[in-house]
């Protein structure tokens, strides 16, 4: 029983990473019908920006000689990285995708992959092959409740992720910008006829998705402190699987499927040798998709109406 609870917490942690990243894929897809294949590398860049921000903050506070509590530094790091990474998202939309908005979707997808490769190799070019390790901003505390061991970091990771998801939910449901996003996901061609520019909503969506990916990057760095220019590849693809599993363009679906992915992986590893984990986990997901080709909350494609 303890063992199961223990793994429950691990699954929630991995699910948080997948869900936060999957949301970005899903949001962009829902408004532009486009898979943003740069997204995994935006996650990576977010982690690096967070690393840079944390390093600078630590250096500054040390050289000034004031002691700032770790949690405050962590919050600042997350906020700075979310802000800067959202700018990156805006640039990717502006430079990479906007010129191709009416081009075949495959061209846009390839553009996304190429920008991703540029981010990876650009990172290598600038920072070299050296691996950086994410500074531990807060002390790790391990709790033992009835034989279940967990750390304050795991709780924090899951807590911050859930908080950000609720924030996103409120934004989409309650704000006028969120309303415009929902409208755009329903019928983007008519949105301009409401006097609303697609060129406001699209960058905003990229910005939010990128900010969430950045948060995921830092949380990931807290759990697995070694940064690597290719860290966004596998995690990005797996989160993309979650976005598809949730149902193309479904925000709720992406979050739920992200957590489901975490659970499938962790509980597969509980039963089978860990080398077989992904093999078995993704076979299960393949089977789910065979029976639910549109994912949990996806709609079959309707013929796109002509305006």
């Amino acid at each position, binding site marked *: 029983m303890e063992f199961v609870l223990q793994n429950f917490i691990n699954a929630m942690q991995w699910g948080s990473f997948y869900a936060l990243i999957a949301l970005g894929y899903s949001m962009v897809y829902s408004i532009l019908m486009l898979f943003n294949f740069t997204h995994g590398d935006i996650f990576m860049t977010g982690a690096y920006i967070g690393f840079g921000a944390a390093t600078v903050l630590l250096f500054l506070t040390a050289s000034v000689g004031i002691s700032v509590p770790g949690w405050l530094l962590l919050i600042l790091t997350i906020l700075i990285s979310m802000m800067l990474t959202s700018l990156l998202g805006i640039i990717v939309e502006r430079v990479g995708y906007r010129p191709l908005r009416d081009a075949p979707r495959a061209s846009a997808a390839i553009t996304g992959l190429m920008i991703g490769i540029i981010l990876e190799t650009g990172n290598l070019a600038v920072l070299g092959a050296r691996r950086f390790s994410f500074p531990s901003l807060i002390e790790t505390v391990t709790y033992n409740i009835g034989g279940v061991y967990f750390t304050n970091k795991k709780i924090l990771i899951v807590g911050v992720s859930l908080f950000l998801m609720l924030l996103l939910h409120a934004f989409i449901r309650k704000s*006028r910008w969120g*309303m*415009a996003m*929902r*409208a755009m*996901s*329903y*019928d983007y*061609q*008519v*949105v*301009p*006829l*409401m*006097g*609303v*520019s*697609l060129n406001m909503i699209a960058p905003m969506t990229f910005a939010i998705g990128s900010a969430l990916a950045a948060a995921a990057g830092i949380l990931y760095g807290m759990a697995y402190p070694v940064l690597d220019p290719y860290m966004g590849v596998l995690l990005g693809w797996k989160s993309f699987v979650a976005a598809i599993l949730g149902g193309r363009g479904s925000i709720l679906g992406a979050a739920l499927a992200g957590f489901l992915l975490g659970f499938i992986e962790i509980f597969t590893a509980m039963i089978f040798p860990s080398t077989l984990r992904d093999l078995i986990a993704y076979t299960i997901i393949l089977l789910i998709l065979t029976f639910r080709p549109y994912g949990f909350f996806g709609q079959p494609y309707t013929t796109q*109406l002509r*305006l």
Partner: protein
Amino acid sequence: MQMVVENLKVSYGNIKALHGLDFGIEKGEIVCIIGANGAGKSTTLKAISRLVPVEANSIMVFDGHDLNAYPPDRVVSELGISHVPEGRRLFGNLTVIENLKLAAFARKDRAAVQDDMEKVFSIFPRLRERGKQMSGTLSGGEQQMLAVGRAFVSGRRMMLLDEPSMGLAPILMLSMFEALKEINREETTILLVEQNARLALNFAGRGYVIENGRIVLEGNSPDLLRNEEVKKAYLGG
């Protein structure tokens, strides 16, 4: 003239949809364009709304502004030209109120927006009752009311209407056109596109007949209603 269109040409790839239309509309007028399926009616409205690119030397001027210099959202938000597209195209996943609020998204004059919403509700009381309902679950008639209401809130110097009678029972059709008259009295110029020529000509002061992307006839509605060709082709003999 509030709107002047000269030599309007539009192609979809190799298909020429409009071969050079010339027309003008005075402020406060109700003008209709009638024509058969595929004649180019919707394309004309889409060109004005800047949803389709026009060919070189196509002139479209509204209140002294060159429409070609405006992206579609600013045609609505800055020039005040709203468009009720063919098939209503409501945001079915948004409530009635949200659809109206979205139409006012870009407007800065918050107080006037509130007035306009009230006006929409007084013209279409049904919409007030249905405020919190998802627009996708409205009846066809209610949807058409919302489509018009939405356009009214988004921009009201001129309203472009693409077949507002489509799918409405005759009695609803009449009340819809009564409502449009009321909107017109609020100083909104109306350009209406219709297949139902009799209805359109009874409603509008003037009309243009287009065939295969060309204007073949124009005149005051009573004259067009009496015109033999119009009778034969569009009024059922």
